[in-house]
């Protein structure tokens, strides 16, 4: 039996529209049936209206954009820290075998701790300040940066390393001028995974240790049994997540075309 042949785009779009509309219709019908309150199960347009209200009206202290801004700042800080530690450490591990052998077992052990499990220490060490969420984002975003830097640097053609050593390059210069440039495509691929994981961890962190941010907004919505607020938060998180990924994909494309990959 063959796979079903590709549908023509008109049919595909019609079916997609049918699927989307019936999903929304089912949801609306369930919400309007009066089985539960509209607060508990809002209709899709209730959620849209709530989202619009959150944009202009402060909830849990800030408007939606202000919450997003503080989430994004934390995300940026944790992500940049992960990059600043992950790339040099990955290069060191790729260059010096003894660093690799000492760090690898510790790293493998720490990697199995879910980033969210750092929450108690985040709370203990930083309270509800900015450090707590940043620690958790760092723990989520760090492993892919390290792994991809290491793998990228390990795949460098031996002859380049030999050439640089023959020409008298120091370890530092070999790492920064041979390993690092060669590892860039792999590193950028790792950054995309990192950003995704970091953003996810941030949301989890804000559910527990924060007093602003989208996660915090959702917790407050949950406490007020306002499903529409919680769903608005989910939508905002989804949109920003997509934007971050699209941005990094652009960076990846630019780098790949420049290198003629």
């Amino acid at each position, binding site marked *: *039996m*063959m*796979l*079903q*042949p590709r*549908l023509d785009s008109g*049919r*595909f779009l019609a*079916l*997609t*529209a*049918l*699927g*989307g509309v019936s*999903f929304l219709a089912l949801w609306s019908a369930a919400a309007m049936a009066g089985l539960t309150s509209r607060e*508990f199960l809002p209709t899709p347009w209730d959620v849209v209206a709530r989202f619009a209200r959150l944009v202009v009206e402060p909830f849990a202290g800030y408007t939606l954009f202000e919450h997003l801004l503080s989430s994004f700042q934390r995300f940026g800080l944790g992500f940049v820290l992960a990059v600043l530690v992950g790339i040099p450490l990955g290069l060191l*591990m790729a260059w010096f075998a003894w660093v*690799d*052998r*000492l*760090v*690898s*077992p*510790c790293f*493998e*052990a*720490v990697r*199995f*701790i*879910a980033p*969210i*499990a*750092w*929450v*108690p*220490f985040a*709370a*203990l060490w930083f309270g509800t300040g900015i450090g707590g969420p940043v620690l958790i984002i760092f723990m989520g975003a760090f492993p892919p940066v390290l*792994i991809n830097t*290491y793998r990228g640097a390990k795949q460098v053609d031996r002859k380049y390393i030999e050439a640089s050593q023959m020409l008298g390059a120091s370890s530092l210069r070999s790492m920064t001028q041979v390993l690092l440039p060669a590892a860039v495509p792999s590193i950028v691929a790792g950054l995309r995974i990192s950003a995704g994981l970091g953003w*996810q*961890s941030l*949301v*989890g962190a804000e*559910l*527990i240790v924060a007093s602003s941010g989208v*996660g915090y907004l*959702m*917790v407050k919505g*949950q406490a007020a049994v*306002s*499903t529409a607020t*919680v769903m608005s*938060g*989910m939508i905002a*998180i*989804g*949109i920003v*997540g*997509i934007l971050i990924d699209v941005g990094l994909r652009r960076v990846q494309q630019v780098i790949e075309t420049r290198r003629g990959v």
Partner: protein
Amino acid sequence: MNTPAATSRPFAKFGYTLAALAVVLLVWQALTTWTGLIAATTFPTPLEVSVAMQQVGIEGYSNGRWHEHVLRSVLLVTMGFVVASAIGVALGLAMGASRTIEALVNPIFLLLRPIPPLAWIPLAIVWLGLGDAAKIMVIFFAAFVPSVINSFTGVRQIDKPIFEASAMLGVAGWRHWREVLIPGALPSIFTGLRLSLQASWTTLVAAELVGAIAGLGQILNQAAQDIYPAMIVVGMASVALCGWLMTLGLGWVEARVMPWKAA
């Protein structure tokens, strides 16, 4: 991460792992106990951690002994993961096999996909409270998305000549699924299952941290409230250990299901 030299001599690698462990323990002991550079209120000493281990193992901590917490968390994850991935893999395979189903389901999927698993926690609490039902809902969404996506791409990645050969041989109906689609998609399905399992575990721990009666996340939550750093370390180590063992378990199943892929 192994260097080629290290893998060819397993004992040397084992030695380095032991050395790394010893260095970590020594540095830890030195920083917390001998020099006191890190205060005991910030990070526990090795001795305190072993005391906390005994406490949770023998007397119990936060409504239960260690094995009760572990059992509860692992059972919940297994239940949610099995249900979600069974439905997810079936749906993914159907979407892969039929472009009509793909077109119909796609819009719902585009909505669900960008939402991080952890973001379902507040919604689950609003709808289902702090009990097991909410945990299962959260695990379901965490595990569902990766298993659908990877089963779907698994079917689409099957080489065209395989379909042509099976069409020529008149393979159809159930046999087409059992002998062409499922085996062809299996490697990708397992990639998805591994991601699903990881997401389920992380999400469950997070959900238990937010609120639960028992479970590993509850140990962490209670220890944070009691400001009991040694118990926090025990909780984190338990989370890592269980996650690691479950991943190993899935790898074992994978090797059984795909004997031809044995490395």
